[in-house]
């Protein structure tokens, strides 16, 4: 207290923001995981600048939903799964948690796949890179306090700057990019609709929504912090969009121009080498490792929060192993299982990844509907209950996501 009053008002504002900052930034940026970067790369390589507006639309939805998630967390002091159990009953809670766990295991496997692929770009075997990453992530979360873990997250996030640098190096056509952002057009083909839906799906990840809420609870943010938290959410979501933008632009300026088709982000990095110089490949690979590591830390954490929340057991990064065994067990289980899946020779990785994507898509819709229900529950939200304008916005997002997911499922199953 004493030191606070010695600072100038401006410094107080900055210090207050730094204290609140976290949930929005980390949850937003971790949505740019290897699957996300792959989707953006394919979007740029196949359609150039044309579909940039899809990215912008996803980003706007991300802002709205993360803002809602963080607010629910702060006001109710409960995680999403716990609230679903409380409001919608034991079955809804368990089903949501079960689907989330399965989807998270799959997504976590995808993160390790990203690390393995990026490692191979630097000539590193996956039998080294994946276990090292799994150990590093576990050590970080299990052995350190909340504030240390958060600081490391921020540092890892800085790796995303690599994509922005790569974007400038590629020398894109800024005019065409602006047109792609502002004018929504789409070639009416199955592939185009699929990639547009995948972009929405990869940005609005269920585990991200569950995470931001639990994290705000764990960080013990209060209603006082809501204004600053909004700044944090906007910053996080905007940065997520900006990074996605640069990935798309990089691929549009190089791969699309040359008509090169790619399958994943590692492909993109390799293909970039002759087009934008050696450094572009390294930057892309470096960015990929950073985003995979961040997401690989968040995913088991998000799962652990959700499981603890469902069962009503303690879940906090500042608790120790003895105080919160279930929390840490879940964390370890998810990490070990996913790392093992990647390392087993001949494991059906493609199947796992496709099923995961479908599961995430199916899960997103009920989660959004539950969130909507919670947001307008006055007994839970009190003075922060959703206004009719906000409710309309939520419903529009739910409708758009619903249509997109239906299209995606249609194409996946057909």
């Amino acid at each position, binding site marked *: *207290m*004493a*030191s*606070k*009053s*010695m600072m100038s008002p401006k410094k107080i504002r900055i210090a207050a923001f730094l*204290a609140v900052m976290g949930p929005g930034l980390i949850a937003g940026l971790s949505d740019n995981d290897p699957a996300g970067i792959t989707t953006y790369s394919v979007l740029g390589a196949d359609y150039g600048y044309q579909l940039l507006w899809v990215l912008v639309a996803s980003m706007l939805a991300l802002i709205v939903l993360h803002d809602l998630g963080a607010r629910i967390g702060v*006001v*109710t*002091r*409960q995680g999403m799964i*716990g609230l679903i*159990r*409380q409001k919608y*009953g*034991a*079955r809804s*809670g*368990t089903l949501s948690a079960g689907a989330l766990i399965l989807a998270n295991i799959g997504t976590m496997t995808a993160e390790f796949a990203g690390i393995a692929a990026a490692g191979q770009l630097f000539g590193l075997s996956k039998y080294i890179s994946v276990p090292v990453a799994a150990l590093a992530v576990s050590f970080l979360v299990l052995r350190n306090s909340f*504030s240390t873990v958060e600081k490391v997250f921020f540092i890892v996030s800085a790796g995303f700057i690599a994509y922005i640098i790569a974007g400038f190096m590629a020398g894109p056509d800024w005019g065409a990019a602006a047109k792609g952002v502002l004018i929504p057009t789409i070639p009416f083909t199955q592939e185009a609709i699929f990639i547009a839906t995948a972009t929405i799906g990869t940005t609005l990840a269920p585990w991200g929504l569950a995470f931001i809420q639990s994290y705000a609870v764990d960080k*013990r943010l*209060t*209603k*006082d*912090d809501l204004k600053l938290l909004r700044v944090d959410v906007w910053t996080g979501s905007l940065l997520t969009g900006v990074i996605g933008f640069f990935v798309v632009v990089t691929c549009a300026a190089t791969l699309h121009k040359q008509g090169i088709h790619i399958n994943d982000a590692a492909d993109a990095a390799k293909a970039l080498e002759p087009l934008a110089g050696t450094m572009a490949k390294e930057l892309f690979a470096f960015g990929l490792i950073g985003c995979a590591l961040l997401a690989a830390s968040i995913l088991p954490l998000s799962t652990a929060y959700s499981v603890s929340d469902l*069962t*009503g*057991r*303690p879940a906090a990064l500042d608790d120790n192993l003895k105080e919160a065994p279930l929390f840490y067990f879940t964390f370890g289980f998810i990490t070990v299982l996913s790392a093992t899946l990647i390392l087993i020779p001949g494991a059906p990785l493609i199947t796992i990844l496709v099923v995961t994507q479908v599961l995430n898509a199916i899960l997103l819709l009920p989660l959004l509907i539950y969130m909507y229900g919670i947001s307008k529950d006055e*007994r*839970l939200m*009190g003075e922060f209950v959703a206004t009719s304008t906000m409710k309309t916005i939520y419903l529009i997002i739910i409708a758009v996501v619903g249509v997109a997911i239906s299209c995606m499922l249609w194409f996946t199953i057909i």
Partner: protein
Amino acid sequence: MKTPPVKSINTVAKRFVGRSDLALQRKSIRESLVSLAGLIGKPVRYQGGKEIGRLVDVVVRHGEDSYPPVSGLIVKVGQSKSFIDGARIAKLTQNEIQLSTAKVDLTEFTRREGESLLDADVLDHQIVDVNGLRVVRSSDLYLAPLDREIRVVGVDISFKAFIRRIFPGALGRGPVPKHVIDWANVASLAHGTGVVKSNESRAALGQLRPADLADLIEDLAGRERNALIEMLDPELAADALEEMEDEELQGLLRGLSAQRSAELISRMEPDEGAEVLRDLDDDHRESIFMEMDISVAKQLRKLVEFDETLAGGIMTSHMLITHEDDTVASALALLVEHKSRDISDGVVVVDAKGKLLDHIQIIELIAAKPAAKLSSLMGPPYPTSVNLNTRLDEVIDEFANNRGSSIIVVDEKNKPVGRILADDLVDALAPTSDTQGFAQGSGAL
């Protein structure tokens, strides 16, 4: 049982383990438990066996009873939900509820003061396990006949009980009494018009250390949290609030009525209370002052205005002032009267004009003859005193130089206006965050 000097969590636990008057200790009750989760959806029948509808929820009334009695049923009749008075229940088993009459008035249910719905408000919600000192979720609730009424007697927090509810049908609905916590050991903080509370749980909460209680409060959600604060003894609640972090505390006060806030802040140490009030916005602070006793408000207003980096801003204005002509006996009586306060380590002695003469430690008083005058005990070492406007760093220097546990703050006329205790300095110096473990045990000097 001998009471240990510090009441720890263990003593609370022992208190309950050794008890024999808990409902679940009785075999007859253990054998007649009905699971609430299993009961929802079961038929409610008239005397003759004709079905009225399906059970939607069970309403209980909270009073002074440890085990809240069932006051009514909410039953789905056709498409609408109706209320049936609890007095009509003849028999309640795991598979059906039978009424004592062949005809009932079906009325629309409206929430009443002091009642809550077991399924909507309590099941799956957060409750405080007073015994284990933690916030948990209830997986199931158990009803049983007790004292001629059907009452809530236990709660199951086990994962097993939760899991079996997910499966369809009556799969393993039977309660396992050893996993059930007696309702008397639980502080359930149901939403709605009433707070679920029992004397037992209230008493048990009263045994907790303020720091542990503060942790519990911080773990709870908004509504539940306010409910817990409401059910606590104000004195204890105030102690717990002192242990909370500033930001938490401010958030909490916004959720409470100005009246309750005023009641709690008045009971806090004045310097702590002033610190909280200082951080609130002007309107909120004023609304709390309005609800306070005028003299308390006046004293706190003065403290709030002091700069936090000056002695006046960190001191506590609560101290025991005695006159040099007073006797040792009267000084000791004064100390006993204020024994609940942390500051009862001695008395401040002033002369006829109210100017500071000395601070006499309690040990000196005990060693002296009761009839002796305080003036006879005065002498070096004299207490360190500082001005209201002495800067914080100078206060620290004074502490460092004198190695005392307190410093007396005087006004320009050398009249004592407050004291700075070592823990006030700790509070002033500790950074605003990460003070959780730090603040524990303050005042125990």
